[in-house]
């Protein structure tokens, strides 16, 4: 099993997928943090709550991790490399499990790098405006484990979704439509907090949630149920399919 996980990690590394998605996160962080620090008033920047909100852009890594998961599963079908994969590892459930673990690890790694950069870059810019930096407080730092955990879950979710649809672009577009349209529509019935996007958001907040989110543990449980359901459905579909 270890060797299959290592092979999956080598796959995302050797296509430079991890590198490009990492760069995308850094660029978004630079944009958001620089705009805030440059434009917000000194009074508002000095607020610990606002500083926390500025660096919480690092949570975008959970969305990017979802894309990573989708591309590393659906991409194998898109590029036709799944045949090579199954020749070496014909027990498809094991491949599915290895992909889940690898995507969770890679997602967590992306999130960790995203947080490290957001905190460092944020502190640097805040200091340059002579604002006292409050980023080392627990209320700010709790986003770090929350984001890392959330990105690990979304990586696994992406694997499941990618194996169900087996088309990269379709899977990414459907995920975005769901997050931007589908889940907000759940708001009509006031059940959006049970949607996968909101469940993952409550994991990111790690206890500091607003009232429209589930509590941390409840959110974590719901997110894990989604990840497990998607993964099991995807693995079953792939297992029964012919690689032609």
């Amino acid at each position, binding site marked *: 099993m270890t060797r299959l996980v290592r*092979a999956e990690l080598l796959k995302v590394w*050797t296509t430079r997928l991890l590198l490009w998605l990492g760069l995308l996160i850094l660029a978004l962080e630079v944009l958001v943090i620089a705009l805030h620090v440059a434009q917000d008033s000194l009074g508002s920047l000095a607020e610990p709550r606002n500083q926390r909100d500025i660096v919480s852009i690092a949570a975008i890594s959970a969305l990017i991790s979802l894309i990573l998961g989708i591309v590393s599963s659906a991409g194998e079908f898109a590029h036709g*490399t799944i*045949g090579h994969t199954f020749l*070496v*590892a*014909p027990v498809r459930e094991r491949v599915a499990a290895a992909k889940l673990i690898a995507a969770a690890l890679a997602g967590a790694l992306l999130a960790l790098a995203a947080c490290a950069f957001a905190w460092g870059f944020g502190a640097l810019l805040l200091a340059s405006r002579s604002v006292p930096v409050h980023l080392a407080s627990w209320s700010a730092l709790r986003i770090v484990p929350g984001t890392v955990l959330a990105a690990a879950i979304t990586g696994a979710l992406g694997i499941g979704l990618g194996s169900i649809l087996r088309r990269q672009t379709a899977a990414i577009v459907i995920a975005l439509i769901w997050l931007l349209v589908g889940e907000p529509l759940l708001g009509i019935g006031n059940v959006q907090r049970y949607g996968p996007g909101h469940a993952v958001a409550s994991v990111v907040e790690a206890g500091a949630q607003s009232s429209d989110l589930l509590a941390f543990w409840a959110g974590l449980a719901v997110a894990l149920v989604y990840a497990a359901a998607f993964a099991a459905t995807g693995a079953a579909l792939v297992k029964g399919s012919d690689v*032609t």
Partner: protein
Amino acid sequence: MPNALPLEARGLTKRFGSTTAVDDLTFAIEPGRITGFLGPNGAGKTTTLRMLLGLVHPTAGEALVDGEPYRKLAEPARTVGAVLEASSYHPTRSGRNHLRVLATAAGIPQTRVDAVLEQVELSAAARRRVGTYSLGMRQRLSVAAALLGEPRQLVLDEPANGLDPEGIRWLRDFLRSFAAGGGTVFISSHVLAEIAQLADEVVIIHKAKLVAHEPLGALTARTAGGTIVRSPDANRLLEQLAAAGIEATAADNELRAAAPPERVGEVAAAAGIVLHELRGESASLEEVFLELTGGEG
């Protein structure tokens, strides 16, 4: 199962919806030989091979490698090396990294990666993205991947497709030396000539069904047809051939004689007849199928 046959199909059947791609196929491949797997395009060769390799699920019957279904093999990459038809690769991954991924997954030491790249003469391009490879280079990469685990058997699906003549010669030499070293080779093709120069025996399928499994010699005997001959003195040659008991018919500017070229040449020489052309006429694979299937193909 040490005594099991390398590859075996037992009543192997695959239906895709209402189409029967492979119909009740039973054959066994002998170890240490090169077996050709012949059939026209669409006969069911690829589906059969993919069932042997665990990629396609049989509707009925069994596909066995060393006596077991592929997915039960403890170390598949060390048991059988496969070259899939028109293998696809991730275009931005280098050839070497593609092999590193497979070696990692199969628990094969990374030193094998450079060794097989050397063996297929691809070392110089190993670090380039596969997207920049020619078709021939991709085929060599496929062969390299098949060799990673030093398997005793190779399964190749139309490996000559898209290869240049030099590549085909390289592949033929390589497979001969692999078999000479005791390896088993099962190679599919829709071109009779490719297999005729290589195989010890042939499995022939047509329209999803097995039509023959025989030594190559038996197949060549079927395909050894008559002789086409052109002569300015065609009428006299026709008489001489008839006198020698050889059936011949005139068609266009040439004669078609039901005897090997050596015989026809001897008859012409004995009668002092000038020849402008003398060539053996071998039956095409399609004609062999027609003969084997009693003309219903």
